[in-house]
């Protein structure tokens, strides 16, 4: 990991209520969320969050509703003010920003995509896409070419002069993404951006996002409650529960080595073959002694490999990156990796 840290969150606390500073003391002394609500009548939003988000990566923050993920993402552009802690973007302390600097940050360095799209209903698709530029004082003719380009890129060519209510949900969210892209901001905040869409369209949109990321290398912070989505998109996965980070790291790592019963529960009913990738279960090295049945890419998921093997557990494959061998994968290892973690930690849970 040589990429620069783009956004860094340190010791972030957020408490909702009339007197958060007093409540903060109780939380620092270890009071939990339920007690805080009952005894102090304050809601614990976030507790001691430390996350580094790297330049050009997709950081996914995952948690169930009420886990504080939407609160967390709103701290990054200060739509919500923290109770305590530090947020640095490009090394600068966002919390010390003046109103003008903050506006600058929101206009030029961060864009946001919302769960409910939040498009302006009285503006056309084109004007919506160019909203960030219009706010900065550009006229429609200034940003029209840009907006058209990105709208075409997200698949909305020909819809420029329609109004948002004339589009389907999926298309509206495409406008939302185009709006974020037209702003040219290096950081994209996506708050449950695909949660309101139906599964097929959601999967399309995920592919679109990955495709765009391939080419643009933005720093994306993505919020979701859907583990499959998180595993599909994440370079770095942060799992939140009740306002605390339960585990963070490479999603494949988390899947293979869950650090908490909560996560085990979470990952117990996902399709491991589809999520796990060759690189996380292969044996590294250029060992060529075995008789390989074929070449596979390190980024293939296990499902594709299974399909190629036809279910034969005696086969082994050569793993290649850019045409050179980086490791090997025996089907037996693959099968082992597919054993659900719940079974693997059974002895652990019996104690």
């Amino acid at each position: 990991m040589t990429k620069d840290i783009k956004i860094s969150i340190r010791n972030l606390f957020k408490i909702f209520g009339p007197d958060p500073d007093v409540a903060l003391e109780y939380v620092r002394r270890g009071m939990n969320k339920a007690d805080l609500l009952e005894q102090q009548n304050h809601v614990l939003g976030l507790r001691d969050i430390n996350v580094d988000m790297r330049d050009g990566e997709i950081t996914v923050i995952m948690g169930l509703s009420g886990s504080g993920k939407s609160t967390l993402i709103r701290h990054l552009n200060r739509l919500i003010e923290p109770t305590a802690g530090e947020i640095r973007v490009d090394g600068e302390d966002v919390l010390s920003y003046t109103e003008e600097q903050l506006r600058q940050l929101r206009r030029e360095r961060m864009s946001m995509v919302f769960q409910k799209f939040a498009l302006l209903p009285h503006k056309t698709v084109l004007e919506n896409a160019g909203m960030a530029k219009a706010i900065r004082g550009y006229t429609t003719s200034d940003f029209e070419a840009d907006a058209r380009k990105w709208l075409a890129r997200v698949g909305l060519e020909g819809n420029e002069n329609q109004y948002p209510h004339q589009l389907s949900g999926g298309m509206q969210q495409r406008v939302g993404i185009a709006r974020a892209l037209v702003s040219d901001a290096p950081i994209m905040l996506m708050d449950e951006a695909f949660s309101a869409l139906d599964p097929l369209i959601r999967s399309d949109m995920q592919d679109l996002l990955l495709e765009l990321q391939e080419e643009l290398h933005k720093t994306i912070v993505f919020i979701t409650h859907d583990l499959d989505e998180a595993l599909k998109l994440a370079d770095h996965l942060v799992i939140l529960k009740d306002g605390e980070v339960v585990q963070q790291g490479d999603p494949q790592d988390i899947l293979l080595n869950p650090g908490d019963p909560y996560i085990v529960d979470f990952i117990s009913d996902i399709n491991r073959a589809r999520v796990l990738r060759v690189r996380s279960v292969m044996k590294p090295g250029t060992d060529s002694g075995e008789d390989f049945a074929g070449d596979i890419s390190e980024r293939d998921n296990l499902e594709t490999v299974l399909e190629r093997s036809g279910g034969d557990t005696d086969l082994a494959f050569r793993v290649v990156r850019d045409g050179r061998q980086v490791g090997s994968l025996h089907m037996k290892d693959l099968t082992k990796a597919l054993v659900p973690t719940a079974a693997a930690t059974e002895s652990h849970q019996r104690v």
Partner: protein
Amino acid sequence: MATYDSLFSSLGLEEWCSQGKSDAPMSMEALLAKTKGGNTEPESIWDAPFPSMDALNESCAAFPQSRELTKGLEQGFLAIKDSLSLILDPLTQPLSWFLDSALYAMLNTPWWIVIPLLLAVVYLVTKSWKLMAFVGGSIILLAFIDHYDYAMQTLAIIFVCAFLCVLLGVPIGIAMARSNTLQRLIIPVLDMLQTLPPFVYLIPLIFLFSVTESKLYGIAIILYAIVPVIRLTNLGIRLVDKDVIEAADAFGMTPRQKLYKVQIPLALPNIMAGVNQTIMMSLAMVVIASLVSAPGLGVLVLRGIRNLELGVGLVSGLGIVILAVILDRVTKASLARINASQKQ
């Protein structure tokens, strides 16, 4: 012997009470009782009157009667009247000018200019030929039965007053939407303006301004009709989708950009509903305001009542109905046009 004598004697206030004995004028009730011949039988508890100001006054002459209250209010008002009109007079003078010039313009422009102009405006805001034909037919009908001048006077007053209501009401509504404190302060005032019987507005205004001035009825109409546009502007801005506001913030809009590019456009359907209500209430008030010399169809209604001229009253009433239907349909059609472009 009155019921509450003992109350004052027990409080040791007899001396204070007796001071007031001579100067209080006798009430009609007391006078009647006197002529009947005083009934001195002790009263039972069943007949005890409520200890109102008048009842207490019977026991203690120094205690004020309730008519002192209305009298005091009147005198208080008369005392501040001069200084009040000194401030209000110049402040409201433009209203007189607006009304007078609108009336003058409406009546001195030939009908063959005014009617097409009105129809053009109708088409411009509604984009409906059907509605325009309806409005044209209605105005021609009114003109044919020689009510053209009256109808145009009423319309001129409504235009001026409704315009000023919007001009003042929308900013007040926006300010209310931004501050909860201000909302708490203004809502009781709006409630009062809305529930106060319209005739009651007129009484203090008659004292403050001369009846010959057109601002007298202008103020009454504006006070009565401004309420819905304030309320609905406030409501409309408060109801703007929170997500869109958040998006506006997230993309770095200044408060001013947010107001003009998001809040007002999205609140427009509600604001326009308020404008519709305001126009309808202006029409209601302009009829009542004919009591204080507002010209227009209301004058005819008043004549119908005063002289019991049934036909005059009915025809002018019908004229008012026609105007109401025109104004309502036209504003609603333009409202529908705004709504159509704002669906979500």
